């Protein structure tokens, strides 16, 4: 029997879920979009998408009973992949529009790019350099380009949680991992072949 490679994409009203679902299908996965905390708790793998503001996203997760469900699933080791804002939500605090509390799955905070002369948002294709081998980045050459669009970036408290860097007016953490929770600051579903490879790898974690 082949493993089912199934993944639940968490729907809390934010993000381009259709593109993610389509990209998962393209790499042989079976994606299901759900806003049901029960489905999230029982999922084999989870994707936490997200586009928009941190505070609104956390409010939506809380309102739908999804905050506890995601934390519980992560706590018992369900592989979880946060995309873009979904990466930032894994962290403890964000300074976006005041201070907000995140899911607290990865210790650290979320900060805004604030270097003078730097365009914000950081938009476009930028390179990802891994710090050490990780199954999520398997088969992806060093310096591969991924599509980014964001104004905030994560700062893990524990340096070992930053598994890849990207340079934008200085290095920032573009891929984080703590246990079975991963997060990427870019959009793999919009990053052509390398993006598909990363999603393929996630289905095999």
């Amino acid at each position, binding site marked *: 029997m082949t493993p089912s490679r199934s993944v639940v994409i968490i729907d809390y009203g934010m993000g*381009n879920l*259709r*593109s993610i679902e*389509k*990209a998962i299908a*393209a790499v042989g996965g079976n994606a299901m979009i759900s806003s049901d905390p029960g489905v999230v708790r029982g999922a084999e793998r989870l994707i936490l998408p997200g*586009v*928009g*503001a941190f505070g609104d996203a956390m409010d939506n997760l809380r309102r739908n009973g999804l905050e506890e469900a995601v934390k519980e699933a992560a706590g018992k080791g369900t592989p979880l992949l946060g995309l873009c804002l979904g990466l930032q939500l894994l962290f403890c605090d964000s300074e976006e529009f005041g201070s907000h509390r995140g899911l607290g799955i990865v210790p650290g905070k979320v900060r805004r790019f604030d270097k003078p*002369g*730097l*365009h*914000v*948002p*950081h*938009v*476009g*294709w*930028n*390179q990802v350099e891994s710090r050490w081998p990780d199954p999520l980045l398997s088969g992806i050459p060093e310096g591969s*380009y991924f*599509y980014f*669009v*964001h*104004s905030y970036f994560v700062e893990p408290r524990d340096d070992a949680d930053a598994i890849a860097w990207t*340079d*934008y007016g200085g290095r920032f953490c573009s891929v984080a991992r703590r246990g079975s929770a991963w997060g990427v600051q870019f*959009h793999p*579903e*919009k*990053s*052509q*072949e390398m*993006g*598909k490879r990363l999603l393929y790898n996630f289905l095999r974690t």
Partner: protein
Amino acid sequence: MLARRIIPCLDVRDGRVVKGTHFVHLRDAGDPVECAVRYDAEGADELVFLDITASSDRRNIVTRMVRDVADNIYIPFTVGGGLRSLEDIQAILRAGADKVSLNTAAVETPSLVDEAARYFGSQCIVVAIDARRVQPFSPDDPRWEVTTHGGRRLTRLEAVGWAREVFERGAGEILLTSMDCDGTQQGYDNLLNRMVAESVSIPVIASGGCGTLEHLADAFLVGKASAALAASIFHYGRHTIKEAKGFLRDRGIPVRL
């Protein structure tokens, strides 16, 4: 390093790709999904669709096209043309577009930019500015006026100041088209590009006038643009995206190859 972007632009009407010269004479150049898939395969960094459908069933026609495109490509794309409200924007984003571009509606109701940026996030709100040189034009005191309705209406808004205003209102990018250069294939208005790029801290996409690979390089080196939009140069097979990027790389411009 962040790559400079090459963005083919597809003008669409009634779900078909057309391309205008000075926005007046249109030529049918194919199916939007086929064009989009080809550009994705060739290595385009993003795509822009500018819709000029006039039908009363416009929203349905456009959302159907957006859905078909979104189902078939793995690069980001922007849709603009005739979007006037948060509901219009939401329909396009829900159908699978990554960004929307606002033009006339932003000029008529500037607060729409603030609301859209707050509601959907700055990252998906592009403001398109169609600028025309104010005559007599002097490079020592250059001025551009914002036009709307495909260049047919003057607004009395000064373009560099307007760019600064939409940036402050929360736009995530500016798609800057020179109405003097558009359709001429004689090169971008890089004085305009540079003046806008230096007065905002969001990316500027240069548009209008690209006819050669040298023009693309100039948009980055002279115009200080973050991305260059082009249509004819790619549509009729004169150059592929790959050729364009190879040319830029050889001039030391960072591109994704």
